[in-house]
């Protein structure tokens, strides 16, 4: 160990060691243990096992194949066979070996790693002298509920067992609990923690006015009952489930699995007990008479990647998916990694190579096999519609009867000819529609000649019909889209043409900003009618109804020329197949809007669209007994090298399958949530703890095995685990229990003394303080600026992203079409998640890619994050919106700035904050006065002619101020 010269003073060098040990706590080397080692007894779990794990067991551990010299040191029997003589360190070969500096004799060998430190050697010696007792790794022994200890801080703990455990630790470290957090900050903290959203001003005020536990509890209950709660905690679960809206690998095409994401949100909101939550996701299909929702739950494990690249072996990628499922299962529920055992017996934890494949056999019996169509799938209607297939069928039956009795409003007109200006050719089909084919000009005008029979025609209808020659879509663009800029109707011929203007227009569907009225505005321009539906895309028939300004009166017959103009700003946005009808009913557009035009037919058509657009969600389906797969040990992990045949069982080191549990996935699910399972409850409470306190009681949430960190509060995590099980795996109860503690309610302010003893706040002598997660960073900014949509559930959305086009090998990739309207401002959990290219928000703020289960995000602090919150389009929009409400909040820059700070931070603004920002405002304002155009752009008022220049300048300067507020450390931190 290098000790720098300026620390040669013995007192100080002790400090250095202390620092190094603190930092080296990874293997459980807490200072306490080191100090204790000097004159107290030895603790195997915290002191000896880490030494053995780090230096010895990778060659002298459970892995028989990799074992050197046929010697194992991880068990008493193995160690005492030769190298260790209990009670006699001097006769123990292991001591000679670790002390030796002879090449080839010293352990560990040079190429394996450094020699043991003096201190480690001393510990080993003491341990052997004391009898070399082994203990089972702490997390493999089922937890028991210890009595909460008492301490000098009992009053602070107030009888709360969690606080009592924490208090005892605080006391033992010579620390004291911190003051309670300021009321404003506490309510903001608890709201962000429980719902991922800031609290309302009203909630903050209520607690500030009456800062009692009763009021706090009331607010906590409100937060737990709010819809935001489920959306927030589901986001955590999606990381574990490696959820994405695409299949992964090279092609990475779309996957419809968002209904499962909604299932998770609902499960959290309904406070589904964690044991049921487990069973439904792992084995919902094996429940007796599973409901639609229980089947949907099993999509959890269909979030594995699929490889649709040509030339890939389905079996190879099926095997990879199955292996990922067992890695994920064991990691999520038991906090252990099994992946090592795929190729060889685990070097550290008690899972053998064979046991891995025995466990795999449970999961090897589902029907899915990396097929391109993702089968098996379930047909599903989005539950928010509150409709089932049966109901829908019944409704359609009824609607058909009604439609049959309804007089027809429209007469389809047979075209005589169709031609184009730029080269599209046409075929007139039997149903009188006109199909575009052949050459695909970027822009084209379709001219259709129709023989109109006698009548007083009041309106024209254009149907856009999906066709299989256009990928079953309505348009000819690669995406299936079209944009009709203008529709013109003329009678007569040659220079006798008479144009018939339209006075009104309606459509059964139009995209926001692509109003059908654009087609009758008399101008052929880039504006027009487009029909991409958020759920049905471009694969449904659409129609536009146009009212003639004056009726088109035809005495005998006449030629009507309908011209359809396509002049979109994008290439190839031409329509694919169209049909023209006329009506004698007056003002059809108006009547359609009032639902007075063919209401029964319309209803029927809508129901049929709905029935066609059920979702196909990949789920689990167990193979029939006759088709069960045989499972073999894969030699060195290769599916091409089958070894011994194995059958399903759980690793021996843990509890057996519960009595009466079936030997299938259901059995595994029940095994995981059995009271005998030593890990599931611990891992679960630790996960929730970590989200609230910033770090788990076991810091390595993903590793409760011998290589993981030891718990900072062993008795506490065990107490929580048992309590959680005893109280019905009630997640809301657990979270409430945690946020009600005095521990949680402490201030995050640290004094120097506390910092000195507990720099990382491992002993919880102050409140948690850490940067918000990716989702919350975005959602909070939208929320405080007033932009956040509260729309829930449904297909993923596409908020603004600088990555407009995502290319993938072998496929066309995708265009990121930014969502319109409120979908632009939904919570981050609804953002479309493309595996190969997630929205930059996510990877910038530490979300690992969603290829494998990710148990914990490693929090970082990078300039790329600064770029995002400073410059990203959404964050700028938030600043503009906030600036506008700041300016509306009263008179004068002081008031505006104060409002901005208080809206964002939910606490009174401090005078230095106001002064700093008022100065920034004043300074920036004068800059913008000399930059009129910049002021318009910065304030977001370029198109708002009603906003005067003075106001634009003020709002621009306030946008800069708001941008600062939304980047404050105290804003980004919970």
């Amino acid at each position, binding site marked *: 160990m290098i000790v720098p010269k300026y620390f040669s003073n013995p007192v100080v060098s002790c*400090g250095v060691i202390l620092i190094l040990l603190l930092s080296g706590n*990874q293997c459980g080397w807490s200072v306490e243990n080191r100090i204790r080692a000097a004159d107290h007894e030895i603790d195997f779990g915290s002191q000896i096992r880490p030494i053995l794990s780090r230096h010895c067991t990778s060659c002298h551990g459970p892995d028989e194949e990799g074992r050197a010299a046929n010697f194992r040191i991880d068990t008493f029997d193995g160690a005492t066979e030769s190298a260790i003589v209990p009670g006699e360190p001097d006769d123990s070969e292991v001591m000679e070996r670790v002390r030796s500096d002879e090449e080839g004799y010293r352990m560990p060998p040079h190429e394996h790693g450094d020699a043991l430190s003096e201190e480690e050697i001393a510990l080993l010696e003491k341990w052997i002298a004391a009898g070399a007792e082994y203990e089972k790794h702490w997390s493999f022994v089922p937890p028991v509920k210890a009595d909460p200890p008492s301490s000098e801080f009992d009053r602070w703990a107030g009888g709360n067992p969690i606080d009592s455990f924490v208090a005892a630790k605080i006391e033992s470290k010579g620390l004291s609990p911190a003051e309670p957090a300021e009321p404003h900050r506490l309510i903001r903290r608890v709201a962000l923690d429980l719902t991922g959203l800031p609290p309302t001003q009203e909630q903050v005020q209520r607690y500030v006015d009456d800062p009692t536990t009763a009021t706090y509890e009331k607010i906590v209950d409100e937060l737990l009952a709010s819809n935001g709660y489920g959306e927030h905690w589901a986001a955590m679960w999606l990381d574990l489930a490696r959820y994405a809206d695409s299949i992964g690998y090279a092609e990475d095409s779309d996957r419809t699995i968002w209904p499962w994401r909604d299932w998770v949100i609902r499960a959290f909101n309904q406070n589904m007990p964690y044991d049921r939550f487990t069973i439904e996701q792992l084995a919902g299909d094996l429940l007796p008479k599973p409901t639609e929702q229980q089947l949907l739950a099993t999509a959890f494990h269909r979030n594995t990647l699929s490889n649709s*690249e040509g030339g890939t*072996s389905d079996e190879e990628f099926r095997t990879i998916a199955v292996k990922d499922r067992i890695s994920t299962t064991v990691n999520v529920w038991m906090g252990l990694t099994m992946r090592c055992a795929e190729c060889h017996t685990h070097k550290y934890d008690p899972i053998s190579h064979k046991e891995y494949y025995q466990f795999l056999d449970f999961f090897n019996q589902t029907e899915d096999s990396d097929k391109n169509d993702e089968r098996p799938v379930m047909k599903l209607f989005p539950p928010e519609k509150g409709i089932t297939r049966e109901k829908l069928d019944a409704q359609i039956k009824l609607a058909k009867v009604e439609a049959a009795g309804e007089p027809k409003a429209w007469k389809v007109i047979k075209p005589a000819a169709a031609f184009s200006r730029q080269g599209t050719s046409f075929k007139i089909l039997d149903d009188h529609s006109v199909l575009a084919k052949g050459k695909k000009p970027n822009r084209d005008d379709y001219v259709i000649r129709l023989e109109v029979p006698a009548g007083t025609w009041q309106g024209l209808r254009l149907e856009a019909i999906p066709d299989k020659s256009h990928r079953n879509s309505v348009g000819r663009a690669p995406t299936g889209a079209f944009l009709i800029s203008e529709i013109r109707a003329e009678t007569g011929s040659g220079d006798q043409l008479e144009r018939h203007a339209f006075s009104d227009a309606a459509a059964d569907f139009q995209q926001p900003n692509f109003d059908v009225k654009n087609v009758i505005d008399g101008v052929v321009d880039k504006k027009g009618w487009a029909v991409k539906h958020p759920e049905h895309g471009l694969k449904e028939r659409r129609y536009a109804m146009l009212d003639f300004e004056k009726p088109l009166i035809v005495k005998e017959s006449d030629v009507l020329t309908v011209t359809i103009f396509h002049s979109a700003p994008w290439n190839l946005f031409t329509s694919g197949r169209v049909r023209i009808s006329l009506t004698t009913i007056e003002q059809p557009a108006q009547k359609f809007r009032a639902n007075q035009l063919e209401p029964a037919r319309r209803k029927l058509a809508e129901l049929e669209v709905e029935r066609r657009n059920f979702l196909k969600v990949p789920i689990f389906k167990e193979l029939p007994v006759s088709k069960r797969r045989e499972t073999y040990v894969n030699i060195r992990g290769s599916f091409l090298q089958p070894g011994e045949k194995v059958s399903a069982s759980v690793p021996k080191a843990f509890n057996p399958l519960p009595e009466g549990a079936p030997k299938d996935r259901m059995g595994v699910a029940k095994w995981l949530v059995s009271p005998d399972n030593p890990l599931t409850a611990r891992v679960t409470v630790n996960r929730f703890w970590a989200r609230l306190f910033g770090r788990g009681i076991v810091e390595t949430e993903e*590793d409760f095995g011998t290589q993981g960190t030891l718990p900072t509060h062993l008795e506490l995590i065990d107490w929580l685990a048992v309590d959680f099980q005893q109280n019905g795996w009630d997640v809301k109860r657990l979270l409430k229990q945690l946020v009600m503690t005095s521990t949680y309610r402490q201030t995050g302010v640290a004094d120097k003394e506390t910092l000195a003893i507990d720099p990382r706040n491992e002993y919880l002598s102050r409140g948690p303080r850490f940067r918000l997660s990716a989702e919350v960073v975005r959602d909070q900014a939208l929320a405080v600026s007033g932009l956040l949509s509260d729309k829930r559930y449904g297909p993923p959305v596409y908020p603004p992203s600088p990555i407009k086009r995502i290319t993938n*090998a*072998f496929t066309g990739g995708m265009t990121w079409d930014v969502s319109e309207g409120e979908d632009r401002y939904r919570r981050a959990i609804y953002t479309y998640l493309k595996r190969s290219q997630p929205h930059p928000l996510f990877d910038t703020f530490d979300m690992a890619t969603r*290829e494998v289960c990710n148990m914990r995000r490693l929090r970082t602090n990078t300039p*790329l994050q600064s770029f*995002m919150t400073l410059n990203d389009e959404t964050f700028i929009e938030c600043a503009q919106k906030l600036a506008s409400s700041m300016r509306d909040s009263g008179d004068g820059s002081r008031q505006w700035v104060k409002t901005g700070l208080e809206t964002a931070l939910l606490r009174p603004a401090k005078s230095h904050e106001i002064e700093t920002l008022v100065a920034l405002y004043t300074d920036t304002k004068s800059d913008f006065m000399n930059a009129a155009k910049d002021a318009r752009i910065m304030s977001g008022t370029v198109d708002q002619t009603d906003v005067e220049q003075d106001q634009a300048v003020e709002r621009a300067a306030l946008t800069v101020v708001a941008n600062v507020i939304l980047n404050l450390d105290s804003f980004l931190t919970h």
Partner: protein
Amino acid sequence: MNFLNPAIELYQRQAQALTRRHFLRNCQLGLGAVALSQLMEDSALADSGKGPDANRQAENPLVPKPPMVAPRAKNVIYLHMAGSPPQHELFDYKPTLVKHHLQPCPEELLKGKTFAFIKGTPKLLGPTVKFAQHGESRQWISEMLPNIAKHADDLCIVKSLHTDQFNHAPAQLLLHTGNQQFGGSSMGAWVTYGLGSENQNLPGYMVMVSGGAMPSAGKSLWGSSFLPSVYQGVQCRSSGDPILFVSNPDGMSRGIRRKSLDALNRLNQRELEQFQDPETLTRINQYELAFRMQTAVPEVMDISRESKKTLESYGADPAKGSFANNCLLARRLVEQGVRFVQLFDWGWDIHGTAKFDDLETQFPKKCKETDQPIAALLSDLKERGMLEDTLVIWGGEFGRTPMNEGRNGSKFLGRDHHPDCFTMWMAGGGVKGGFSFGETDELGYKVVEDDVPVRDFQATVLHALGLDPHKLHFPFQGLNQRLIGPANSPKVREELFA
């Protein structure tokens, strides 16, 4: 901050120097000594009264760290030809294969083999191009690479690489992240994690993509996975912002940005005083770094600053993104001290199913797109005296078969995926120039001499940079994760170094 206890102050400095998590990990790594020496160095700087500059250094986890062993190279430019170029047409010259052109492949070669696309008995396919010997070293190089051939004496050509993956994504993942499945950390992330970077105004690991598509395995090829995300490759884009969000929003001048950051920092400073949270200090410094990057990034990415002669030598055109531009950018980045620069060029998957992926149209097109820029890069690095410190690597993710693929009776010529042997070359960075290593059999079907598994290649690259591939590790999920995988068999191939 004025702490009474120097040990605590030391801790605080440390917390500033690296994210806490990172340090905790570091100390476990055998890199502990590195972190420690870094720590001492920072303290020493602070003590020597260098003041804020020293502090600024300390807060960035990308500060240069001393190598673990004597380094031969400081930087890497890795040119990955995604899809995998056919070695039989480029570097692995097989006259025997010419003789057997379009004869059925001997059955014994096919026994027990699976191919991605080849079915039945394929025909052998002689090289479709001519070869000649070049340079004093007389290395065989294809006529398709007339410019690179002029650098024959700089190239260390390894003909005996092999992998065990024959689909693009898993093979790319294995090569770049050490794990054929997703979830590994990329080589560039490992290198910046181990060594930091020389320029604190730019990311330490930068990636550029050309050829019209992302490589099959996507961004995971330059991801950080379990390593802190600060080490992930930052992709520079050829249109829009070169780095996402580097530009101020429209309407905001740099002057206003400066003023707003001053205000922000002032307020954050007060927050720091109240809460004493080292993360706040880090955040203040990251905003400052971001501000500096706003100048540094567009500057370094602006190739129009290069002379006309340089642009012409690369065939670069500032107006449109290309592999040539990326080669020039690679030099500019390395010149600025970026540790690891990686280029992915799509379009090398020469199956021969149609004109867009065959040996007669697509392959010459890809050669033409890359030959001149790569040669220019080597010359440019040499002229600037940078080649000796820069390890340039060229290659694909696997090899291609000596047989014609002939998928569905295709009339176009092409080769299927082949994991058993492939060629890569390196230049600069202390490798032997004018040197060829490893041999394949007379058909170029399997390695017969000096085989180099991809894990040896990874170990060798890390070693060249002064990292010990066996010791560079990171504890995650119960294992000390390493780029080279859990087994100790991967070897540094000393034979490749001068």
